[in-house]
């Protein structure tokens, strides 16, 4: 058994306004898995992902990151330029895609290379040939190379999310964080995007940590599941083991599962 790529230990996040979003959360992310985080709205899922790539800063606890077997560092302790390096290694996609709508699809994908391009060069639009080639490759991987020179705003939601995946891949990340990647898409498109995420997971071997709302999707795509409730970890296991009593515990008594297909 190889070592986990991420080990989250006693993670606590308290926002400046006093909200305790994470209370002593610990779990591992295994190399190459498709881990899904579930939990009610406000349970701390987004906060957790944003602590891992340091868009937010943990209050206490450790996030041990092992890029390779045998080397490790604590993401929670990173400062200054180290934080930027960690973000490069943790690609992220968002519920609302977060592209630059007025810029071309190709440019948006290239922005994944910003972290590895000197600021002055990037501002003049000078990305390396290799970056351009990789950007195009990833556009092809998510099946929208024919839209490369459209403005991002001209694409449908599902297509925009695929551009966002390509942008994250261009970062050459070790982990892909996905914060409710299909929550603003219709059910059919939702599967298209989830299928691409699975493809990235299986073909490129990229570790994925994904927040999801629908249990039917969780059962279909996750290799492992953790559940948060009120900022605490309440479940860790395989998706098939989430039965009615677990469901009631995670989502509260009286909650009912809805299915989308």
């Amino acid at each position, binding site marked *: 058994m190889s070592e986990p790529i991420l080990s989250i230990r006693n993670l606590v996040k308290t926002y400046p306004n006093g909200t305790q979003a994470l209370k002593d959360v610990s779990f591992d992310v295994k190399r190459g898995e498709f881990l899904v985080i579930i939990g009610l709205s406000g349970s701390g899922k987004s906060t957790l992902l944003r602590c891992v*790539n340091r*868009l937010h800063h943990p209050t206490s606890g450790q996030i041990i990151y092992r890029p390779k077997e045998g080397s490790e560092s604590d993401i929670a302790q990173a400062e200054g330029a180290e934080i*930027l*390096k*960690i*973000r*490069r*290694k*943790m*690609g*992220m996609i*968002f519920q*609302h*895609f*977060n*592209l*630059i*709508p*007025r*810029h071309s699809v190709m440019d948006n994908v290239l*922005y*994944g*290379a*910003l*972290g*590895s391009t000197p*600021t002055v060069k*990037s*501002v003049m639009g000078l990305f390396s040939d290799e970056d351009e080639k990789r950007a195009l490759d990833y556009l092809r991987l998510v099946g929208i190379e024919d839209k490369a020179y459209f403005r991002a705003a001209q694409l449908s939601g599902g297509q925009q999310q695929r551009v*966002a995946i390509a*942008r*994250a891949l261009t*970062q050459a990340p070790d982990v892909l964080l996905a914060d409710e990647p299909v929550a603003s898409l219709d059910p059919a498109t939702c599967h298209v995007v989830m299928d691409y995420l699975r493809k990235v997971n299986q073909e490129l071997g990229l570790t994925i940590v994904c927040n999801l709302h629908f249990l039917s999707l969780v059962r279909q795509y996750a290799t492992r599941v953790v559940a948060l409730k009120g900022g605490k970890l309440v479940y860790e296991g395989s998706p098939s083991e989430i039965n009615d009593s677990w469901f009631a515990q995670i989502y509260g008594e009286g909650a009912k599962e809805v299915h989308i297909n």
Partner: protein
Amino acid sequence: MSQGSSNVSSETGAAVRRSILDGVVFAYLAFTLLAILGLEESELVNRVPQFAMMFLGLSIVGGVVSLALNAKGIKTLGWQIYAPPHLRMKSAEELATPIYKSFWGVQTIVLVAVTTAVGIKTTEIDIFKLLEVDRFNHAMRLFAQLFAPDWSILPKAIVKVVETIYIAFIATVIAVPIAFVLSFLMARNIMGGSKIGFAVYAILRTVFNISRSIEPVLWAIIFSIWASFGPFAGMLALLVHSVASLAKQYSEIVEGIEDGPVEGIESTGASRLQVVWFAVVPQVVLPYISYTVYRWDTNVRMATILGLVGGGGIGAMLMEYFGQAMWPQVGCIIFVIASVVWLMDAFSSHIRAAIK
């Protein structure tokens, strides 16, 4: 618990504010009454400290009266303005009373009426002056000459108005890059992250708020001494004012941007400057252009005024003929200015509509 204590402190704060307001209103009314009863301006000027003390005293009396009235449930103007929201609920009886019968209604009406009366006296409004035969005829002769412009100076006026347009253009063009850089340093969402950043933000805000509150005409007077009379002085005056105005308008646009793209670019490991350039700038470019065109248009109008006080261009020319009471020539210049202002206005609203 904490909710309750914050309610108490907000109520105290509101009570202090409303008694100050009611107090000052009371002192103002009492004072004005005094002035109407025949206080000479010279008396007022000679005894400023005494009157200031008196005003303060009257304010305190008014403030105490206000507290007493509000405690008895008679709602004053101060209460209407400063009462915390959870005390705003009106009783059915209050809702049924017409405004002019309520205490604060009467207070407001008296305040407006007294101010209007004093205002009319101070402005020396005198309709009959306009109707005196001599004055009236004189004005009519002047109009007749203005409306018979002397077109022989038209070529010179056009040259001068073009000069004004260029003055305004250069002031705008130099102001834009300066304001562009400043706008990010003056935006809270960009600078709020660190202590140093916030200090820069606060200092720049203050400096530019002050420089913006100095009218361009004053800048023109300063620069016409420093850089001698002429277009250069006018341009400098416009430049200072444009940088201050544009930086403020631009920074407000920056503060209104969407967070999503910023987060998206940040998540790639981009540097701070890259985040600004790739996530913020694309969101602000169009509104920036729109404001810039409008600023140029405004600057043309302002440059005309600045010419009157030594800023060169068509304004200076207008001043020259005006000083010699050469009305037909003045008429021609006014025609040229009006045409250009109208054209610039149409042009700028056309561009702004096009880039929306």
